[in-house]
Every structure is written in C-alpha cells, then in structure tokens.
C-alpha cells in the first residue's frame, strides 16, 4: 500500500519534472493548417481567441503543441487556456525552447498524440491586460478617449501556417487609423485581416490600430478578499477594493455643469458599474472610509443579486476610489461535510467585481474556525501561498488559522472555485458560549458575596 503510494508520488515527481523542465523541441512537422483568430478590443482587455487546425505532416505522432507569445506581451498575459474540439480543457504549461530563450512559450499537451497526416482543432484563448494604451494619454473632459493597440498581423507561432485570417473587433466606428496589410477590409466596427497564406514560423508584422474606445478602463489595483467561516451557519465575505480609472488621464478642470449637460451614455468617465453577488447573499454592505456609499443600490434578480455600485464621484482618467464590500452567505451552500470530522469549503478565490474586470493584485484570506487540523488546499490555478496567519474573533482565546493566498494580474476567467479541506471537532463550537457563561456565573457569585457580606472596617452607626 505505502509502497504503491510512494511509487505514485515518485512517478508524479518525475512527470512534473518532465513537463516543467524538459526542453521541448519545435517539431517542424507540425503545421497550422488554418488559423482563425479574432482579437476583441472592445474593452480595455485584449481578448484573443484562435481556432487552430493542426496537421501533422510527418509520420511519428506528436503530443506537444507550442504556443509562443508575441514579443513584449509576456508581462501582460493574464490568462491562457486551450480547449480541444470537445471544449475540454488541455494542460498548458510554460516552457522553454532551445534557441529561443528570449521568447515565452507555452506547451500544450494534446489529449492523444497526433498521428501522421492527421488534423486536430485547438481553441486557444488568452487575455492580455494593459495592452491597449490610451493615446493621447491626457484628454480634457469633453474629448473622446482614443487608444492604440499594437499586435501582429500574423498569428505568432513557431510553426508555419498555411492559411490564416484575423478579425479585430472594436467598439466604435471611429477609427483614427490602422495598418493596412492587404488583404484587409473594414466593416462597421470590425477589421478583417487576411486571409494570409503560407506564413513562415515566427513571422511578425506590426499591426496597430488607433481608435476611439470609451469602454470603462477600470483596474482594480488591489483586492483584499476575506472569507470567514463560522460553523454557526454563515460565511462572511469582505472585499477591500482599490480601483482606478486607467484610461486617458483627465487634463484640466472637471466641470460639473458640462458633466450634467452631457447626457450621452458613451463617455470615457465611469459613472457606475455592476457587481454580481451570489443569490444567497444577505447583510450586504458597501462602505468606504467615510461610511456607507449612499449612491449605490442593491437589486435582487432571479438568480443573483446585483449591486449597482456607483462610486461617490464619477471616475475620470487617473481618478481613484476605494471601498469595502461585504456580505454573508449561508454556509450550507459552500461547506460540505466529507465524513467524520473532515469538512470541505468550496468558494471562489476571486469573485465578480465588474464585467471585463482586471485585478492587478489579489490577496485572499480564509479564516478557518477555531481548532482546525490538517488543512489542505486545492487551488484551481497556481497561486502563491503566504505564511499562515492567526486572528482572534469574538471572545476567541485560541485564535484561528488564516490561509493567505496571493496572485497578481487576474481577469474574469479566473473566477474559479478554491477548495479547502480541514478536520474540525464540533465540540469546539461550544467553547465560547461556555466561557461566557462561566464568566457571568463568576460575576454573579462575586456580586452576591459582596452584597451579603459586610466589608466595612468599623460598623456604621446606623446599624447600631
């Protein structure tokens, strides 16, 4: 039994070594037969999806497919995933390629090795943050916000590509200019590049688009999420959010008069946004250092609760705001008993703040109940685990373990469940009430003794 376990562990070690450290070769037998790429530039995120049809022109089966990031975007990559034709997630690992150490590669392990002259379709999706830059980066209140995007006309890949097209979707018709590598066509608010045929590996040609984009350029610079488990039946969630308008900075005065007259919805300032909370959330509060944000409202929808968060002031480029959002959810929806004394908490590591959100830094703290043992963590993606902390809540005498997790550069796709399992004894629930009862009991005893007994040094004259 134990030997088997050990073996498994060793195997696992070996395997992981293989994946992460092994130098993967670029197999030139592999050819991108067709790439249909679409770049979504409607928000402040660059959302790239590509349907890649692979063909193995060789004979030996190939099990790896390499993805390479366009030069200069490695720091901006927030999320990457590859699905096969059946929409099933494939394993994607960062890797290094000999001779191309300056580039960032991701290695996709195919479900089944691709046999000779077989084709397979992969759906690549990745999100870049901070890749759309406002230009000019300072505008006045009345001006429109223009941004620039730099990319590549060709799908950047270590393999040669037979045929590819790229569709760029923008959110306005107002395009200042864009690079025109023929064939290219513009219709309404989208530009179609291609088809380009027979593109060599690592082909790169700068694509730049300068267009109007009044989408809310909001960035959460820091998000501190605190999850507190109570076995009395609820889980408290509190998020401390620091948010900034990362679009073009406001130049010159802010005029309330002009702002009130300008009723068009398409403005680069952000008036409000929606946060979606779990349907079971109750006791919702949203406040900042000055108290309740009275401009915001909570609406209950059918399957969720919608918080329309209107910051105290409209956010213009460069303006910041920060607030605290908290709510409770009943624990039965998120906390399961796994048998015996073992419990499993399954909660989102990151939750929705606004559509197309971008979180620069996330710290999630999970406060476990008093006296937990054997804590195990299962994160949906790689997170940094900081050293455990300890905190004291109401009348605690022992303290509670705090798990501290950290990750930077997150987007909507990162809203996934975190699983924490621990062992916990139900009897510790009674610890605090008993303590309180004893304290009160002692107090009453003291009062009774004090009242019954006469402590005065000399008898007072009244009582003769």
């Amino acid at each position, binding site marked *: 039994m134990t030997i088997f376990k050990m073996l498994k562990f060793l195997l696992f070690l070996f395997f992981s070594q293989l994946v992460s450290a092994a130098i993967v070769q670029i197999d030139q037998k592999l050819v991108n037969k067709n790439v249909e790429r679409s770049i979504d530039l409607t928000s402040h995120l660059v959302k790239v999806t590509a349907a890649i049809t692979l063909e193995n022109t060789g004979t030996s089966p190939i099990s790896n497919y390499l993805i390479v990031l366009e030069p200069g975007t490695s720091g901006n990559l927030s999320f990457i995933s590859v699905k096969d034709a059946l929409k099933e997630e494939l394993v994607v690992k960062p890797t290094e390629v000999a001779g191309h150490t300056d580039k960032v590669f991701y290695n996709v392990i195919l479900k089944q090795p691709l046999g000779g002259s077989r084709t397979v379709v992969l759906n690549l999706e990745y999100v870049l943050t901070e890749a759309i830059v406002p230009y000019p980066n300072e505008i006045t209140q009345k001006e429109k916000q223009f941004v620039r995007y730099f990319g590549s006309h060709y799908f950047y890949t270590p393999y040669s590509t037979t045929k590819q097209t790229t569709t760029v979707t923008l959110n306005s018709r107002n395009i200042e200019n864009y690079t025109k590598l023929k064939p290219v066509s513009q219709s309404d608010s989208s530009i179609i590049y291609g088809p380009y045929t027979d593109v060599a590996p690592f082909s790169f040609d700068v694509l730049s688009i300068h267009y109007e984009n009044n989408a809310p350029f909001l960035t959460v610079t820091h998000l501190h999420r605190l999850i507190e488990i109570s076995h009395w039946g609820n889980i408290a969630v509190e998020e401390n959010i620091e948010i900034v308008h990362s679009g073009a900075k406001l130049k*010159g*005065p*802010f*005029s*309330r*008069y002009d702002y*009130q007259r300008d009723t068009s919805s398409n403005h680069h300032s952000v008036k409000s946004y929606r946060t979606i909370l779990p349907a079971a959330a109750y006791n919702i509060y949203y*406040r*900042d*250092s*000055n*108290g*309740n944000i*009275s*401009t915001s409202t909570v609406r209950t929808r059918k399957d969720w609760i919608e918080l329309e968060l209107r910051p*105290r*002031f409209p956010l213009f480029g*460069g*303006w*910041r*705001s*920060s607030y605290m959002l908290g709510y409770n959810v009943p624990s039965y929806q998120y906390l399961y008993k796994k048998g015996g004394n073992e419990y499993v908490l399954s909660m989102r590591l990151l939750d929705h703040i606004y559509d197309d959100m971008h979180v620069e830094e996330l710290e999630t703290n999970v406060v476990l109940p008093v006296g937990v043992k054997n804590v195990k963590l299962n994160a949906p993606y790689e997170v940094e685990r900081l050293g455990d902390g300890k905190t*004291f*809540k*109401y*009348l*605690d*005498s022992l303290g509670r373990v705090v798990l501290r997790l950290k990750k930077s550069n997150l987007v909507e796709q990162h809203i996934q469940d975190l699983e924490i399992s621990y062992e916990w004894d139900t009897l510790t629930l009674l610890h605090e009430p008993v303590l309180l009862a004893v304290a009160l009991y002692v107090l009453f005893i003291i009062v009774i003794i004090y009242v019954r007994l006469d402590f005065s040094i000399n008898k007072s004259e009244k009582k003769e």
Partner: protein
Amino acid sequence: MSQTYTKKSSISKLNSKAGISSLLIFVILLLAWIAGFSSRLFAVIRFESIIHEFDPWFNYRATAYMVKHGFYNFLNWFDERAWYPLGRIVGGTVYPGLMITSGSIHYLLHLLHINVHIRDICVFLAPVFSGLTSISTYYLTKELWSKGAGLFAACFIAIVPGYISRSVAGSYDNEGIAIFALQFTYFLWIKSVKTGSVFWAVASALSYFYMVSAWGGYVFIINLIPLHVFVLLLMGRFSNRLFTSYTTFYILGLIMSMQIPFVGFQPIRTSEHMAASGVFALMFAVATLKYLQSMMSKSEFKSLVIYGGLIAAGIVFGTVVLLTYAGFIAPWSGRFYSLWDTGYAKIHIPIIASVSEHQPTTWFAFFFDLHVLVATFPAGLWYCIKNINDERVFVVLYALSAVYFAGVMVRLMLTLTPVVCILSGIAFSGLLELFLRDDEIAKPEESGDEEHTTPKNRKYDKVGRVPKMKHELNKEPDGIGPNIRTIISVVILLLLMLFAVHCTWVTSNAYSSPSIVLASYSGDGTRQILDDFREAYFWLSQNTADEARVMSWWDYGYQIAGMANRTTLVDNNTWNNSHIALVGKAMSSNESAAYTIMTALDVDYVLVIFGGVIGYSGDDINKFLWMVRIAEGEHPKDIKESNYFTEQGEFRIDGEGSPTLLNCLMYKLSYYRFGELKLDYRTPAGYDRTRNAVIGNKDFQLTYLEEAYTTEHWLVRIYRVKKPDEFNRPRIPVANRLVKSPNFVSKKSTKRKRGTLKNKPVIVKGKRLSSKQS
C-alpha cells in the same frame, strides 16, 4: 422571646421590602438607561453609524490616532496637517478624557477579542454614557431628597432633549461624557459634605479630575462647589464635615487638575479658578476663628474678628490685585468674560459671536429643550428652599447659576438640564407621592420614634427623609375627595406622557441629523439622500496629492482633516484669529489679491460650500459676512465690511449687489458657471435658491484657479490653485512693472521687409526633424 421574634420578623420583612424596592429601582434605572440609549439612535437607524457634525470629527480622528499610536504618542502628537504652516500641538490643546475613555473601552473589548471598530465605539459612547448620567442623577437626587425623586430625575434626564441634543449617537463630543462626570462629581461632593468623610471627598476629587480631563466646563464645578461652601459659611453652617470635605477636595482636585497638559498651571494662575482658593483660605480663617472662639472671651474674640478679618481681607484682596497686575494671574478669558458682560463678545470677539450656539437663549429654546420641566422645576426649587439644609443649598445655587448661564448662552442649556431634571423630579415625586398613596394609607408606619426625635434636632437640617408627610398620613378624611385625587393624578400623568412624546418628537426632528448627510423628502414621502459632503471629502482623499493643502472656511477644517485626511489651514479649534482672518481676507479679496495670499500659504485647493442649487442655507455665502468681519478685524486697511453692502446697506448677491462682493473670490468660487445653469423651467438661469435671486455676476472666468471638482448637487465646490506657470498673467501696465522690459526696437529695416525665421528648419520629406540644424 417574643420580642426577639418580632424584631427578627420585622427585619426579614424589612429585608424583603428592601429587596423589592432595590429590584424596582434597579429595573427602573435599567429601563431608563435602555430608553435613553434607544431614543438616541434615530440618526443611526435613519442613516448609519457615523460621526456627526464638526468637532466630533476631530475627536474621532484624535481617538483613532491614539488607538493606533498609543497614549504617549498621542500626548506628544504634533499635528502638521492642521493650521498649515503652523501646525497644532494636539496633546497639549485637547481635553483628553474623551479619547482616553473610548480608547480604554476599545482596549478592553479587544482584550476580550471583541473586534469593534473604534468608530462604532465613538458613535455609541454618548448614548451609553447617558445611562450612567441618569444613574448618577438618581444618586444625587437621592442624596438631596428621596429615592422616588431620584427615580423621577433619572427618567427625566434619560430622555430630556436638552441633554439628548448633545449626546445622540454619533455626536462624539466632550459634553457627552462630561455631564456624567459633572453629576457624579456633584453626587460625591454632596455625599462627602453629608458624611464629612475623607473617602467621599477623595472620590469626588477623582471624579472632578475625570471631569477636568473631559471638558472645559469643569470651571463650573470649581466655582460652584466653592460657592456652595461660601454660602454655607455665610449661613453659619460651618462644620468640621464641611472643612474636611472641602479642604480634601480642593487640594486633591487642584493638584490632579494640573496634571492635564491642556489645563497646566491655569488653576493657580487664572481668575476663573481664584474663587476656589479664596474660599479655601476663608475656610481656614473661619476654622481658626471657631477654634479661637472656644478659647477666648467674647469681647476679645469680637475685636479679633473685626481687626483680623479686615486685615486678612485687605491682604488677600491686595495680593490678588497685585498678582493680577504683575501678570501672574491671568484675567478672565474672553469666553468667560462674555458670560458676565453679555454684550462683550458681540463687539470684541466676532469669532465667538459668529457661532450660533453662543447666542442668548429665547424662551422658546427653554421650552423646546425642557418642555414640562421648565414650568415645574421652580416648584422643586421652592420646596428645596423651604426645606433647606446643607446639600439643598447646593442644588439651589446650582439651579440659580445654571439658569443664568443658560439664559446667556444656548450652549449652556446643557448644564441647566441636569438640575432642572433633579428639581422637577423633586416636584413631581412630592406631588405624586401624596396623590398616589391612598392604598398605603391604612398601613401604620414604624417610624414613629424618628418622628418624635426629628422636630427637636431639626433646625434646617435633616429633613432629607421627607418626614413632613409622616404625621398627615393618619388623617384619613383628607379633604380632597378620591375623585379629585384621581383626576389630578391622571392630569399629572398626562403631563408626563406629553413630556415623553415631546422628547421623542424633538429628538427625532431636531437632534438626529448627522449634518454631513442631508436628507430631502419629496412629495410622495420618498427620501433622497444628499451625500455631497462625503462625496467631496472622499474625492479629496482619493484624488489629490497626499500633502495637498486645502483652504476652506474654518467650519470645515475638522471634517476635511477627518474625512479627506488632507492638510487644512484653519479649523474649528479657532485658536489663531489672525490666521483665520488671513483666510477670510483671501476669501473676500478679488482673485489676484487672493492668489498672492494663497501662494504665500502654499494653498493647493480651495473648498467652498455652495447651497444655491438645493437651497441649503448654511453655505459659505450666508456665512460670508462673518468672514469679512473677521478679516476686517485684522486687516482694516484692505477689507471693509461696508464695501460688501449695497448703498441701502443690504447684502445682495444679485445685480444690485456691491461690485466688491460680486468680484470677490468667495462669490466667484461659489457661482462659477452657475450663471449657465437652469434649475427648472420656471426660473431663469443662475437662480440661487437659497437667496431667491438671480446672481449678479454671471459671465466670468477664473484666471488663477480652475474647477477641480463639484459635487452632484453643487454643494461642495473644490478648485485647484494654478501654479504660476499655468496661467496667462494679466497684463501689467509698463508703468507699474517692477522689472521694466527694455523698449522693443524693431530691427526691421526697409530692406528686409519680409519676415524670416531664424534658424529656419529645413524639412526633408520622410525624415524626422533633427533638433540641431546647421
């Protein structure tokens, strides 16, 4: 046998009776506490748990600082964010009692791991202390009159608006805890006068110490207690008990009060405290005389009294005058002086006169704050005088002095309220005790022996236990029929009920607005919250540089510091009149003159409150004349109040208004671009709803400032002061220039009529322009 048995049974009976009555007292006091606490929660329930108004924001900020940095750092705190560029030594200029109280509560709770935010402790401190106040009022009244009166007084003070006005949840101010300290000190003082025990005197000195640490109103105690002693001496009621308690109290109180940094040496150096030391000396003189009297013959004693008294009085008076003259004893400070010479502040200290709570009190305010109590407390006073004894002298003096002070200043209604509650409690309990007792009448009282002994001993003392009704009890047919009795009881209860609903109404309508959050009710009763203050302060805190300096009128200083955490020039601690006058001058000068002041003071932002859009009357334009007046006091050359009036002497903001007003900074900042705004279809553009007029100066631009932020309802407007290189300076005529530019001589000759560019760049297509051209 039987005798012991009866004695035992009577004791057990007494015990059980005492048990029930103490249970009853406990329950009533608890209910009073709960009622007092909950009636102070209107603001929290309607709005939220938030600090109100102005001064509480400073107290809150200071408390938060203390909790964060510790007590000693708090005492040494130099606040560089206030009174820029002077700063403020906070530790030495506050009464720290409030901060220490909530800080220790915070510390205790956190010791038990009850993680309450310090803000919530601050918000709920005053309501909690109101319960303690009512308990100490109970004890004080019990000492003065009876338990029943005490319960009445405790219930009155729990809900009386005059006290609620200063102690609603969120009103985190010194007065909230000071009234408790005041009542408790008085209780301990009365106790010590009655017992003559050092223990109670020390306790009262300790309580006095707490009061000194909490509120400047401690001066009231340190003058009232000596006055009490003095009057007792005049009445020939000197006793060793009085001697013990006063000397102990005075010395300990004096030494301890000097431990508060803000008070320092004032107790021995200012006139406000001199009465206490004078009485202290007098006490010794009287004690000496009493002692000598027992040793000397009558004629010797007489001459000694006359000569000794005259000489002593002369010496004391001379010393005080001399010390005052030499500057060792400071004369009365302005605030206290204005209590006596009622017209003083109006003429000499505009900054005191400008505060609305320093105004005299109308009868309306008395009735509003005290309702039925104001009409009944004189009856209690009457009975106290009629049945005078040592401690009732005190309450009479307390009532008379407090009613005078309350008449002079609205704010001091607060010190009147407790004594009014005590005296009304006495009046009502006296009345109801007599009218609600028919069922008890049959019962024989076992206090017969006491009744026989009292009339002999009692001169003016020892009426404390209401013996007056004792022997009337047996007169069964008492003249008033049971019907009238019932009617009278019902009417009295009706009055009390009316009082209770009045208190609730007043609290709910007048005293429960946080004043930083405004609410307006539309026709269908829905409430709209106007949260402009917090909007603006939060904007400042998030979107300005951390060290940015904000200029505003002093009313908003504490709020800016507390909510926006930015440096202010002046604030509600109005210690430096000339600095305030400078800000007032900047506000009342024209833009360029103001710019010089503002650059001299390194101002980055200017904040003004403007109520013209929503009709908010407490805005800066309405306060503007005070700014002008205060500025004029310090800069009479530059600012003249008369310039801000029309020829008819009116203060108008419309086209008729004086040009100085229409061009001053405050006007421009308030009305910048307001002239374009049309509020609704019926009114023309630029119609000011607060002053009901169309503004006079509509179309103007700002040269030296730019609008940085204006809140949703235009209530707060923030302007950024431009840096010198950011604007086009207005042209200065050559004659006025300090640095005269050399006369420009055109070098154009007839030959070269075509203008040319020097170093004309040569542009080559497709090449970038290099900076150096040959």
